[in-house]
């Protein structure tokens, strides 16, 4: 059976996404713990060991440094996908939805789920960026805050994107493994 091959650009994008997302989430947890979104100071704190930065200032340093890598990586890859027209065949399509709804072939359905899940990760990451910019510069980008109906809603959205993204990422790796085994996983990370 032939090994799957990912383009070098895709592999770079995937690696950088994974590492920068890890840094964004862990530094984000450090920031979160300074005043938990649900319940404030008396609210639920997350385990301190997962926080990157040591304290609030450190978390902010990591968060506002890594954000550049995180965003620019998505940007260049978005341009690449558009120019190479990868979006036409590498991401979820009407055919996948049809396979999920009426298809009988189990392998085809699994493949469709896999494509659906990894496609959904992109808007989740973009939502995190959009809400993040609103929280970082709420006076200059007041319209972002307004579009969510206020500070609390913005903050909750930015925070909730994290567990949702983590669940999607977990499903993503499981589906990848199901669809193509460790060989598929290796093709994205190594080879």
């Amino acid at each position, binding site marked *: 059976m032939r090994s799957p091959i990912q383009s070098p650009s895709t592999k770079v994008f995937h690696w950088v996404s994974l590492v920068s997302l890890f840094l964004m989430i*862990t530094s984000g947890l450090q*920031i979160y713990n300074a005043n938990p979104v649900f319940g404030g100071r008396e609210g639920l704190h997350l385990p301190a*060991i997962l926080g990157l930065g040591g304290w609030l*200032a450190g978390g902010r340093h*990591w968060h*506002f*440094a890594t954000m550049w890598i995180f965003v620019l990586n998505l940007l260049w890859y978005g341009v690449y996908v558009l120019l190479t027209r990868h979006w036409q065949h590498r991401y979820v399509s009407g055919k996948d939805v049809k396979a999920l709804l009426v298809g009988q072939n189990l392998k085809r359905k699994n493949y469709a789920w896999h494509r659906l899940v990894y496609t959904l990760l992109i808007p989740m990451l973009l939502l995190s960026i959009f809400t993040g910019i609103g929280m970082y510069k709420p*006076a200059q980008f007041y319209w972002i*805050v307004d579009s969510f109906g206020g500070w609390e809603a913005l*903050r909750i959205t930015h925070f909730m994107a994290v567990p949702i993204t983590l669940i999607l990422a977990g499903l993503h790796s499981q589906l990848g493994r199901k669809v193509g085994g460790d060989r598929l996983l290796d093709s994205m990370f190594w080879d």
Partner: protein
Amino acid sequence: MEPNQNKPDLDLESDDTDLVPRRRFLNLAGAGLLTIGFGSLAEGFVGAVSEPLNQQVESLIFQPQKLVPELPIAAIEPDKLIINSFRGTPPIDLASYRLIIDGAVDNPLSLSMSDVQKLPFTSMVIRHVCVEGWAAIVQWGGVRLRDLIAIAKPSTQAKYVYFYSADGYYESWDLDSVMHPQTLMAYQKNSQPLEAANGAPLRLASPVKLGYKLSKWVTRIELTSELGEKQGYWEDLGYEWYAGL
């Protein structure tokens, strides 16, 4: 003997049947924790590398005369304004209180509260944002800081403004943000006279800076041409200086 077509891995252990292969999980978890550990130690370095860029960007997007949209009175959230002070409330004798404005000015001032309250009164309802992540919509009333500074006649050399407070807290701002029309020296909060715990008699209020830059119990405003080594209580500990919203 048939070639084994169902197990492309050469790995003969039970990793294939695990939902998350044990060794892979341990490797990833270990790498993650090590990254967090060493990364936390490097936070100062990461900040030193990235803050100049972030400061450039935020001062670029700051519009010195553009008003930040204000909020309706009905939106005020009185219970949300948490009182944060690094040392508690200092005792201030209101009768002998004076606001000093000096430094790079041609006309240094020493104003009593009745002097300050003779100047035109401005009220605004804005969002106070704390670096901790919470925010509160609050009404502030007071005098525009740029009106006070105009009376002191700043010299052309003046580029920065230091704020000294009665409790030992100190801050420094860029002049543009100080002169922004919504930067006030406030003595009213939510339609009531400002209380001691919130910074009475005078505190900074502005929608364009993070909460830690909005000094309470201000006793002296000093204009300077340069930023010194000490730039603010929290800044000197590692927080960013510009802190623009």
